[in-house]
C-alpha cells in the first residue's frame, strides 16, 4: 500500500520533471517561432473558438453568483452597492483567469494530450525524429505558444462577461442601476488587478499546454495510454492552476 503510493509519487515527480524540461526546451525554440507562425495561428484559432461558447456561460454565471452571494450579505448593512466593487475585482483577479484555466484544461489541454499521444503511439513522433525534425519545435512550440496567448485573451472575455453578469444581477435583484455599477467599477478597478489577472492567465495557459503535450509525448501502450494521458492532463492542470494561483497572488499582492 505504502509502496504503491511511493511509486505514484515517483511517477508524478517524473511527470513534473518532464513537463519542466519540455517547457524549457520549447522556450529555447522561441526564436524559430516565425517559421511555425501559420501553425501557431491555426492552433490559436482552434483554442479560442473551442473555448468561446463555454467561456460565455461560465463567465456569465460566475459573475452572477458572485453578485448574488455578496449582494445578499451586503444587503444586511444596506451596502449592496459594494457588489460593483467586489464582483469586478474578484472576476479580474481570480475568477476570470482560474475559470478560463479550468475551461482550457478540459477543452484544449486534453485535446492536445490526445493528439500528441495518438501521434506517439502510432510512431509519428519517431518518424519526426528520423527526419531530424525536432518534435519540440514541430509539436510543442506552436501549441504552447498558442495557448499561452489565447488564455489571456479568453480571460479578458470571461472578465467582461462576468462583470456584466454582476451588473445584470445588480439591476434585476439588488436594485442597482447599470450606470452606478459601471461608475463604481471604473473608479475602483486598479491596473494591478488587471495585469495580475492576465499574468495568471498567461502562466495557466503555458502550464496547461505544457502538461498536455508532455503527457502526450509520454503516452505508452495504444489507445488506453492515450486515454490515461488525457485524463492526467486535466487533473494535473487543475492542481497546477490552483497552486500557481496562490503563488502568483502572493507574489503580486504581498
Amino acid at each position, binding site marked *: 500500500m505504502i509502496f504503491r503510493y511511493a511509486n505514484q509519487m515517483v511517477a508524478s515527480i517524473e511527470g513534473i520533471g518532464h513537463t519542466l524540461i519540455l517547457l524549457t526546451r520549447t522556450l529555447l525554440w522561441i526564436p524559430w517561432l516565425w517559421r511555425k507562425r501559420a501553425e501557431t495561428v491555426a492552433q490559436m484559432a482552434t483554442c479560442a473558438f473551442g473555448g468561446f461558447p463555454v467561456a460565455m456561460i461560465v463567465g456569465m454565471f460566475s459573475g452572477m453568483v458572485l453578485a448574488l452571494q455578496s449582494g445578499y450579505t451586503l444587503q444586511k448593512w444596506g451596502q449592496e452597492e459594494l457588489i460593483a466593487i467586489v464582483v469586478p475585482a474578484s472576476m479580474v483577479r481570480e475568477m476570470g483567469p482560474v475559470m478560463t484555466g479550468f475551461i482550457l484544461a478540459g477543452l484544449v489541454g486534453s485535446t492536445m494530450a490526445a*493528439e500528441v499521444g*495518438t*501521434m506517439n503511439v*502510432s*510512431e*509519428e513522433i*519517431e*518518424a*519526426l*525524429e*528520423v*527526419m*531530424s*525534425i*525536432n518534435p519540440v519545435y*514541430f509539436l510543442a512550440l506552436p501549441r504552447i505558444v498558442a495557448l499561452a496567448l489565447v488564455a489571456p485573451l479568453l480571460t479578458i472575455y470571461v472578465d467582461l462577461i462576468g462583470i456584466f453578469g454582476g451588473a445584470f444581477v445588480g439591476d434585476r435583484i439588488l436594485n442597482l442601476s447599470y450606470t452606478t455599477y459601471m461608475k463604481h467599477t471604473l473608479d475602483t478597478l486598479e491596473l494591478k488587478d488587471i495585469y495580475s489577472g492576465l499574468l495568471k492567465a498567461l502562466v495557466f495557459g503555458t502550464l496547461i499546454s505544457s502538461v498536455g503535450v508532455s503527457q502526450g509525448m509520454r503516452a505508452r501502450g495504444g489507445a488506453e495510454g492515450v486515454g490515461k494521458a488525457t485524463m492526467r492532463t486535466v487533473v494535473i492542470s487543475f492542481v497546477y492552476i490552483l497552486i500557481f494561483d496562490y503563488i502568483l497572488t502572493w507574489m503580486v499582492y504581498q
Partner: protein
Amino acid sequence: MPEHVIEIVDLCKSLGGKQVLNRLCLQVRRGETFVIIGRSGTGKSVTLKHIIGLMKPDSGTCTVFGTEMGKATRAEAETVRRRIGYLFQSGALLASMNVEDNVALPLREIERMPEDQVLRTVREKLDLVDLDKVELKMPSELSGGMRKRVGLARAISRNPELVLYDEPTSGLDPIGTAAIDELILSMKKKLKVTQIVVTHDMASARRIADRIGLLYDGRIYFTGTPADLDETTDVVVHQFVHGEVAGPMTEKSGETKRYRRQRPPTPPPAPPTPHPAPAPEKQDFPPPA
C-alpha cells in the same frame, strides 16, 4: 571514406524484461543491399531503430557513417539522420497531413527547398513508388499498402545515402512487390545507395540482396549471399528458408541447442527438396511486362 557504412559490435538490448538483442554484430558495406530475415518478434525492427538512433544500446556499439549513434548528441545524430531514409513498418505517416505534405515534410522543414522544387520532387518520388493522384488524400483514406508506399516515398525524398526499409513489401500485391523490388535494385545500381531491407518475402530477398542475414536468438545467426543461403546445411537456416513448422527454431526455448554451421564434404543426409513446403522457385514470378 570507411569501407563500412554500418558497424554494429556486440549490441545488447533488453525490452520489457526480455533480452531481444544479444551481442549482435553486423557490418554493412558501402553500396551494398543487405537483407535481414528472421521470425516475427526476433528484433528486426529493434535493430533498425538502433541504427537510426531511436533506441540506445544497453551495451555494445552501433556506428553509422563513423558516428556512434548510442553516444551521439542530438545534433550529431540529426546530421547522420539527414543522410538516412527510414521506412517504418507501419508507414508512420502524419495523420493530420495529406500525402503531399507528408512526403514534402523533410524537404520543407529541414532542406528548406523552394516550393516548386518541393512539388516536383514529391511528384517524382510518388511516381517511383507507383502512386498516382493521391497527393491530396489523407493517410486515413489510403489502403495499408498505399500508406506503406507513401512512407517509402517520404523515406527517399531527400535522396539519402543509406535507406533502411522495415518490411517494404508487406501488404503489397505481387505486382506492387515487384515494383518495389525494382525500385530497390535501381537505387543500388543508379544511385549506389546502401540499403538494409527487413523482409519476410524470401523471393524478393533473393532478388534484391547482395547478402542476407538471418536474425535468430538475438544475433545475426547467418550471413551470406542468396546462393550461400541455399547451399548451407545449417538446420536453423534451412527451417526458416523453407518455412517448416518443425525444427530448431520452433523448439521450446529452454531446450534450444546450439546448431553449428557445418559444410560436410559429402552431400548432406537430409535431401533439400522433398519438403511439403512450397519450393522457393514456385514463389518466383516474372516481373510485370
